[in-house]
Structures are given as C-alpha cells and as structure tokens.
C-alpha cells in the first residue's frame, strides 16, 4: 500500500513537471502615459450566448493590478455594475466607447460616472474551457473501503482579450490578449491525485502584468 502511494506521488511529481502553459501576448497600441493617481474598473463581457467571462477572473486581474500599483484604485466589478444598474447589464452594456457618450446624455449616469472619477474602463472578453480529455478511471466501494484506479488527462485553454477605454480621451486606446493552454493529469491508485495546470491563473498573471505595465507606463 505504502509503495503504491509512493509511486503515485512520484508519478504526480513527474507529471507536474510536464504541465506547461503557453502565453501569447499582443499589444496593439503602445501606451503614451501612465496613471499617476486615479480609478479604473475592469468588466467582463457577458453577452455571448454560450459563455460568460468569469467574475473570478475579473477579480483576479483587479487584484493583480491593485497589488502592482498603490496609485491605481480598482473599483470592484459587482460594485460598479450595481451602482450603474441597469446600464451595464448584458442587455445594455456599451459595446464601444461611443455608446458611453450616448449614456452620458442621461444626467444621472453622467453624475455617477463623474462621482466615480473613472480614468479607464477595461473590458475583458473570453473564457477558460476544457478541451480534449482521455483516459479512464474506475472507482469502487467495498466492505473494506473505497478506492479508485486509473488515469485521466485533459487539456485546458484560456483565451482572453482586454480592451482599454480611456475616459478622458473618450477613445479606445489599446487591446491586449492572453492565450494560455495546459494539460492536467489525474492518476489514481486508491486515491485520485489531481495535478491541475494553472491555465487560468497564468492567463490572469499575463494579462494583469500587461495591463499594469500599460497603466503605469511613464509614471
């Protein structure tokens, strides 16, 4: 039994070393000036029929930027969407910076955005999903206990694009993207041991770092 468990841990460690994540980064517009002090909000796109950009991914990006710069105040997504209700719901959310201009015609909206003192609005569109999977695993319950045996593996892909709107300039000023992928494994000898590729976390770090560099450029 001990030998079997040791083998599983060794296999896990070996396969853990095989977990890889590829990062593809693109920045279309070079930053011209960074933020010295101000507020931003990061919002997820939620209007696609079959997926929503994950709220925890948006939180992750926000935390990454907050940790990286004390000068940047990141307004939490939920707080912003509630404060602006119903103008940032999936049905009503502006798809271009020009649409925000049309919203500003409403005195209550203009007043609230002015109160929030927003410098940048960053939209994140994308998702993380499992791709191929293979292997098999059987689990059983008997009088002496329960256990599983087998091996499973699956791929995970994250694809996110960030679009940056500058409120002062009233223009879209940049786009960035992160594409990561990785392979996760789950060997099981009595106990299944998941070795999960940190695909989404890597995408968060990648996109968060790019955004932080953009927002901090020149400051």
């Amino acid at each position, binding site marked *: 039994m001990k030998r079997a468990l040791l083998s599983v841990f060794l296999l896990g460690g070996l396969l853990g070393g095989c977990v890889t994540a590829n990062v593809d980064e693109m920045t279309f517009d070079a930053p011209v000036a960074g933020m010295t002090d101000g507020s931003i909000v990061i919002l997820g796109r939620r209007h696609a029929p*079959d*997926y*929503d950009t*994950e*709220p925890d991914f948006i939180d992750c990006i926000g935390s990454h930027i907050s940790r990286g710069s004390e000068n940047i105040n990141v307004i939490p997504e939920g707080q912003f969407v*509630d*404060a*602006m*209700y*119903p*103008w940032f*719901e*999936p*049905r*009503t959310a502006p798809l271009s910076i020009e649409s925000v201009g049309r919203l500003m015609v*409403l*005195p*209550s*909206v203009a007043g*609230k955005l002015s109160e929030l003192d927003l410098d940048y609005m960053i939209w994140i569109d994308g*998702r*993380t*999903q499992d791709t191929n999977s293979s292997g098999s695993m059987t689990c059983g319950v008997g*009088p002496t206990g329960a256990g599983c045996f087998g091996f499973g593996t699956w791929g995970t892909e994250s694809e996110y694009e960030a679009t940056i709107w500058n409120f002062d300039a009233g223009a879209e000023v940049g786009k960035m993207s992160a594409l990561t992928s990785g392979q996760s494994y789950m060997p099981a000898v009595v106990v299944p041991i998941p070795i999960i590729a940190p695909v989404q976390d890597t995408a968060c770090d990648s996109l968060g770092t790019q955004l932080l560099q953009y927002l901090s450029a020149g400051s």
Partner: protein
Amino acid sequence: MVGRLLDSMTLGRKAQRLLTLITLIALAACSTREVVVEGSFPTPLVDPVPVSVGILFTKEFKEHELVDDATGRGEVSWRVSTGTAQVEFWSTLLPAFFHNVVFIESYEDLQTYDVDAVLIPKVADVQYAIPLYTNVKVYEIWMRYNLALVEPEQIIDKENSTISLENIQPFAEWPLTAYGKTPTAFMQSDSDAVNLAAVMALRDAGANFITSFLRVPGVMDWIDNPEEAQ
C-alpha cells in the same frame, strides 16, 4: 421507511446497507429540486418619469412559481418560486423609476391616494433550461411578463368596495421579456445556478423595462398629459 422495507427482505446486513444506499441515490435522482429565488437587487440609476403610479401586485404575482413535474420523464422535477423575489425586485425598481409610487394593497388605498395610473404586472410565463436538457454548459431562465397601465377608476368596484380586475381596459398594455443565464463553471450546485439565472433574468427584466418603457404605445401621450389617460 427504506430500512423497514429492507428488513422485511431476507438479505445479509451488508447487502441491506448497499441496497439502502442504492435506493436512496435513486430516490434523490428522482426528487424535486426546490428553489426559492433570492438575491440582492440594486436601485436603478435613472431620472424618474414625472408621474404618480399605483403598483398592484396580484396574489398570483406575489406567489408565482414555476413547477416542472418531470417524474414522467424520469428526471428531476423543479419548483422555482419567484414570487417573493419578483415583489422585492419590482418594489426596488419602480419607486426609483417613477416620480411617485404607491403600492396598492386594498380598495381603501385606491380611494386614499391620488395616482395617475395603476401598473399591473403579470408573469405570463417562466421557462428554464439546464445543461442536462440542452448540452450547452449554461443554466437559463426566460421570463415573459404582461404589463398593463390602467386608469385607477377602471379597477374600482364601488358596489362591493373591492378591487376588480375583470373587464379592465388598459390604456397601455405590453409584453416584456427577460433572460438570465449562469455558466456551469460558476456554480457548485444546480439549485444555486438556477437561482442565479433567475436573479439575472429579473435584472434583465428591469433593464428591458427601463429602456423600453417610453417607447410603449400610449405611454408618451400619458406622460405628457397624465391627468387624462387614454
């Protein structure tokens, strides 16, 4: 009960336990999932429409629930109670959307308060879809409302001193649709996902109401001259 049933059979103790477990799993698979929709609803950021409106939530509206008895299909049945959340949501939205709002609870309220019109929302239909049915990894809720604006006099039954919704002729009447979804990846359980999809659908209903209200035929004329509803 399952234990008693198995006691009556001639089985070994371990076999009985196993059978109990299997039976309980089978019963759980065919049980009814009950969801009482709960959520927090924000006050809308709007410039109020300058009218005074009475809001009448009917008993059916307050107690609305979606019941899908799937026992015949061998699937899990669902009972989704939206009534309380409907009342909570619209009670937050409407007072912010109209300049003055009175919630009409009784005949006396109608006699006491001077309102330009009474808004009567009705849930016409609620449908749901879960990944098991659609193979799409989202939980979905659709809602369809029928909304009516009537003159207060139309629903006053002076003879019986009650509110009557029979034979009313609204000066504005329109359908309102709403949709909410929750990806499977976000949720731990079916019930949580259906609840969140319902909350999203309610929020969408509010967004649709606010953005479409002034385009409803008859409404602009009424706002221009609220004392004389068409």
